[in-house]
């Protein structure tokens, strides 16, 4: 009798196991993702040249192109793009342009940003007038809450103007400008 009961138990277990392996039931699993605010940019003009027509000491001008990607929080979140002259002009002349210590107070490096609205949602607000570049961060644009671009980003630019002071010595001068996109 004991043997029969043991055999029955084994048969039942085998049957249940066999059913679990050979059955066609479905099983669900949840994929959970948290989309957080993010922001990034790429620079299309790693070397920006400022040029002048060469007559009447017309100002030097040039353009830096960049692409931004942004996703700000649906509520309460914003994003900013800023730039700073992280390395002041230096070059073959001793007396040349300078952002930190200009020869004359009017010798400014200024810029006008062109930053279209995010391609999917939200707004971009640039300064209302030309901005004087500085060794510390200055504004390029501010994005609204729930600002979103598509995967291709949004093409933007900064148009530079440098005063052509006759007091500069001739030569080539280079500064480094760092663009930063941030989230708050």
């Amino acid at each position, binding site marked *: 009798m004991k043997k029969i009961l043991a055999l029955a138990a084994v048969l039942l277990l085998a049957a249940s196991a066999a059913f679990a392996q050979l059955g066609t039931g479905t099983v669900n699993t949840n994929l959970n993702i948290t989309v957080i605010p993010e922001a990034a940019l790429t*620079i299309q003009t790693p070397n*920006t040249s400022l040029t002048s027509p060469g007559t009447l000491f017309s100002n030097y001008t040039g353009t830096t192109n960049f692409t931004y990607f942004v996703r700000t929080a649906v509520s309460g979140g914003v994003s900013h793009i800023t730039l700073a002259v992280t390395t002041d002009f230096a070059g073959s002349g001793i007396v040349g342009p300078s952002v930190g210590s200009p020869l004359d107070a009017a010798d400014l490096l200024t810029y006008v940003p062109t930053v279209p609205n995010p391609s999917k949602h939200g707004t971009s607000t640039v300064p209302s007038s030309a901005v004087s570049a500085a060794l510390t961060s200055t504004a390029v644009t501010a994005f609204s809450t729930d600002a979103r671009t598509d995967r291709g980003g949004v093409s933007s630019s900064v148009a530079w103007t440098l005063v052509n002071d006759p007091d500069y010595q001739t030569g080539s001068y280079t500064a480094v400008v760092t663009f930063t996109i941030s989230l708050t």
Partner: protein
Amino acid sequence: MKKLLKTLPLLALILLFTASVGHAQSATGTTSVTVNVAAEAALTVASPTALTAIGSVFNNYTGSTLVTYFIRTKQSTGSGTISLQVTTDFSPAGGPSVGTPPTAGDALKYTCSGAAPATPCTGSQPASTGSSSPVASFGADAHTTTTAGSTVTTSWTLTNDPVYKTGAYSATVTFTISAS
């Protein structure tokens, strides 16, 4: 089933790698801003210049022209000049003339004055319709230091020949600045 279990980790790894490569952006980017500062020059001239004679005993006509200039010459091998030329002789006819003076010896002449970085011309210079005459010269690494520019002055003398008919006469003098 076993094959699938073996393949899944590799597939996940491939997907993760692809995702990271597809979004190679960052929060910062830099650009090098370069400007080539070249030799350059410009000037402005106050116009018109009135030549007047003092008294009534045929003293010469005199007057002066203020030239405001802006200049930048190359650091080690640069130079510059300011020159002038009578590009339109006195008119109407019957009065003074630079190109064909009514009397030999009738002349429009000038002297120059000014401070550094200019070196003004020395002595009395004859103005000419046929060629340019010197006003100032500049050496290497010469540059004006203020946004208002620097100045040189040409002081004119025109012979007061009694043979001139009475009336108003006008000539055009062109100043030219160059820098290298």
